[in-house]
């Protein structure tokens, strides 16, 4: 059987399959459907310093091969996560990776500082790409200087593996990736959702309370795949591939394009067991293609 472990700086994942922030709750929601210990890691729901109620209803719209969400980082705050939620999931035999958010650099830093103290948490994902909040979020991720500034500030207070999550809503994603690499990111994860919109032609109104929301799902896969491929060739740090991964074939495509690991997002809603099926599918692919270590797949795209 192929060796499925992958390394992202000091973070060791037992396999490259993780679940994407905001699409997998805190893992517990899926415990009835799969053995969570099988996963490479769980990127838990976005956290902020203070509790947030998120945006008004409606927050969701279905689109062709995708969906829009406008959740807006609803969460009970970093304090509640550390004191109440994390203790419930910390004994899982998988990496729990918090997704860190803020309206200001100071807020980001405070959240990261708190997480730096938590034993068992070996990495954080810095979200500078949320399109659904008025302040912070994607605003940091669309400009190179601000992406660098927030990464730099967090790097100063966070010792363990720092993953920076990039937004696809930019002209040149490699520029931002290179910026955060220089600022000290240990890895980049991409992509977050695309800023998008849905309209109800009957009522003539936007479907979402916030008018715009974030597009995810297989619709965005071809763009995400291109970005992973570009970023892989632009930086030296590992890349985590995200965007419309629905099955093992999709996951393998992302790895061939350059991803060291992948995150499964929207697919969890359609099939709560999909993450485990993807692990099995990758295993089968390795067997069929005589691959002894899954990391051989990373960037193994051949020329035409």
């Amino acid at each position, binding site marked *: 059987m192929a060796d499925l472990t992958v390394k992202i700086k000091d973070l060791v994942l037992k396999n490259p399959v993780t679940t994407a922030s*905001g699409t997998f709750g805190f893992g517990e929601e899926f415990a009835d459907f799969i053995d969570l210990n099988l996963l490479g890691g769980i990127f838990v729901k976005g956290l902020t310093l203070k509790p947030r109620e*998120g945006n008004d209803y409606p927050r969701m719209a279905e689109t*062709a091969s*995708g*969906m829009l969400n406008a959740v807006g980082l*609803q969460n009970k705050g970093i304090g509640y996560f550390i004191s109440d939620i994390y203790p419930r999931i910390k004994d899982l035999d998988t990496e729990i990776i918090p997704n860190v958010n803020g309206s200001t650099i100071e807020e980001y830093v405070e959240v990261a500082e708190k997480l730096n103290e938590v034993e068992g948490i070996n990495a954080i994902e810095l979200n500078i790409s949320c399109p659904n909040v008025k302040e912070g979020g994607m605003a940091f991720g669309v400009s190179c200087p601000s992406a660098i500034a927030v990464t730099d500030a967090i790097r100063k207070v966070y010792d363990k593996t720092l993953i920076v999550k990039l937004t696809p809503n930019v002209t040149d994603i490699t520029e931002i990736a290179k910026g955060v690499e220089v600022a000290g990111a240990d890895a980049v994860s991409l992509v977050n959702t695309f800023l998008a919109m849905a309209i109800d032609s009957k009522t003539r109104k936007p479907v979402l309370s916030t008018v715009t929301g974030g597009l995810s799902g297989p619709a965005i896969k071809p763009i995400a795949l291109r970005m992973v491929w570009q970023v892989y060739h632009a930086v030296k740090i590992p890349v985590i591939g995200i965007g419309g991964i629905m099955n093992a074939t999709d996951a393998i495509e992302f790895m061939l394009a350059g991803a060291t690991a992948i995150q499964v997002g929207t697919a*969890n809603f359609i099939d*709560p*067991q999909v993450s485990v099926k993807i692990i099995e599918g990758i295993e089968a692919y390795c067997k069929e293609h005589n691959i002894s270590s899954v990391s051989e797949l990373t960037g193994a795209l051949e020329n035409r």
Partner: protein
Amino acid sequence: MKKIQDFRVKEYRWLNETGYLLTLYSDLKIEPVLPGNFAEIQVPGTPEVFLRRPISVFDADYENRSITFYIKVAGKGTKKLGELNQGTIVNIIYPLGNSFTVNGSKNVLVVGGGSGIAPFVLLADELKKKNIKTTFLFGARTKKEIVLTREFGRLGKVWVTTEDGSLGEQGLVTQHTVFKDILTFDKIYSCGSDPMMKAVAKIAGENRIDCEVSLENMMACGIGACLCCVTETTSGNKCVCTDGPVFNSKELAWQI
């Protein structure tokens, strides 16, 4: 425990042009379903439908391993679910959500509109088991939309209102004469359109009668993972799929 399970289409019973009962069966045992629980149904074979569709459980037959849904055609997904061949595999995640509370009441009023009557067969079964007297009040625009009165008739008295007066009293449900004696009821359950439930909740509130409503919302996951389906409550935003769909109307931040 929540379960993901393959069922097969057993049969349809069309009630009018847009409403049908869909019965699915399974080779495996059926999980226990409580009144108010729903399922997330994967719609087979349509390019237009990406996500699962939340549908209340109408009835469950544990012996025959079958489960029935009352579905009203609202769009692409509910249309397709009405067109499947017998034997087609339909994957569902269930049972989801909380359920109506059935406790020490003596005389309850159940108010439903449209597909909102779906959870009330299971509820009424439960009420009957506990010897709680049940009165149903169903409202619709017109006669054709009033369905299953015979089935509900076995479980309690059924009143009907239609906006065009083609069946029962003319008007909105909340204008029905049963509300004149509202104080004889010690609990109200309601499911239907938001305006209807709000109007019912208002009357309940004014008369200090305990009232539970079952809400709808746009859902992506149905299991509390995506936080897409919130409703505002007196204690902040709550997920309709896990904290609901049943809420006590007092909890809701409704402007009524």
